[in-house]
């Protein structure tokens, strides 16, 4: 994945969720739903495919493991490299949004 490549929204939201601190799979799913205001509902298949890929790219790592009610709970954390990827993506989105807003306000000004 190129640093300049736009992150897909689920990947962006997973990294954003982990930017708040280490979380387990279910925690990431609920956090992503909260961040996106319920618009993005991650499912387990998508989540773990993304986590596995992000681990391979060294963007996320395992923070710790716990056994809760007899089930394994693995906590994931954002690595410094993942934070850099997220920061670049956020900056790009901010720049794009600023340009869009500026042009829209110009459009509105011209129409008035």
């Amino acid at each position, binding site marked *: 994945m190129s640093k300049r*490549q736009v992150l897909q929204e689920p990947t962006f939201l997973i990294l954003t969720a982990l930017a708040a601190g280490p979380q387990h799979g279910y925690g990431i799913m609920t956090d992503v739903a909260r961040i996106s205001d319920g618009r993005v509902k991650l499912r387990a298949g998508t989540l773990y*495919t993304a986590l596995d890929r992000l681990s*391979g*790219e*060294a963007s996320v790592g395992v923070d710790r493991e716990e056994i809760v009610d007899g*089930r*394994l709970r693995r906590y994931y954390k954002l690595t410094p*490299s993942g934070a850099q990827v997220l920061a670049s993506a956020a900056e790009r989105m901010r720049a794009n949004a600023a340009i869009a807003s500026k042009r829209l306000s110009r459009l509105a000004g011209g129409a008035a």
Partner: protein
Amino acid sequence: MSGVSDMAALERRYRRLLVWYPAEHRRVHAEEMVGVLLASARNGQRRPSLADALDLIKGGIQTRLRPAHHDGLDDGWRDTLAIASIAMPTIIALLYAVIFAWTAYHRVGDPAAGMPVAMTAVLAGWLLLVVLPPVLALRRFLRAAMLLYFVPVLFLAYAGAGPVVSGEQGGFFLAFLISAVAFVLSPGPRRAVQIMSAKAWVVVYAIGLSLSIPEIMLRWLAYMPAPTGPDRSSQLVAVLAWHLRLDPQHSAWVVVLTTALVAAGAALGLSRTLPSPVGKRLLVLLAVPAYPSVVSLTASAAGPGWLLGAEVVYPPTVLLGCLAVGLVWQSRRREHADRAS
């Protein structure tokens, strides 16, 4: 139907869907995935929803199609190949640089040879081609990197088919091939940078360069003024003896033994800087491209009548190939036995 049996039925069905994922992925993630799937299930739900089932199937297929999971290799192999995907090209680059410097040095003042600009350009081009793939991979341009990893392999397989078959370019071909395959089957150079310490890199390069000594010697001999002799191998021995001021009968052996000693020392260092399976496997991978030149040099040391080429390189290749397949097979069997117990 009780809640507990509903949950058990749902869990069984989710586990059945996880078969879409590769065994390695299931080994690492199955338990937590089942936990997450059950945690997000509705009360009394007995079957996975269609959306969840499709999502798991899609995820399984995507994971299987991803290069790092094609192999079914354990973390040891994945890490070994990740290191090889960056170490091998950079060792080749260093070797090219040494050969280039050597050639330039010996051609200076020789008007007949005249250090041609074309040769400089070709070597510089090769250097760039060798260094670019790991650099691109580190910058996360993975598709471009993959393409470029295979360019020298395809070029040597096609344009250099003659020298590859005769053994002259065999070492380089094997090194490029191992680099490309290592990149496809591993997380790549970024993972290597993450797991390797500065000390481990120094040791890896020491091994790579010491294993390149026979290749450098062979190239060096090709450019040296040679006393005339009955055949090429006796010429090689004579030239080497002349330059090293040694008994002609022993000179090539001295190079081979020195290489073996330096490599053994470096291997000892590797075993102390990298965990055992990764260190050992990396040593084998680095030794593979060195061996055609070691065999050629050893054969030339064996005396006149030996030729530098396919006939001395390929019989041991078949033997070593069989040995390698046997070792991999044995290691896989042991792995399966460990997992089953």
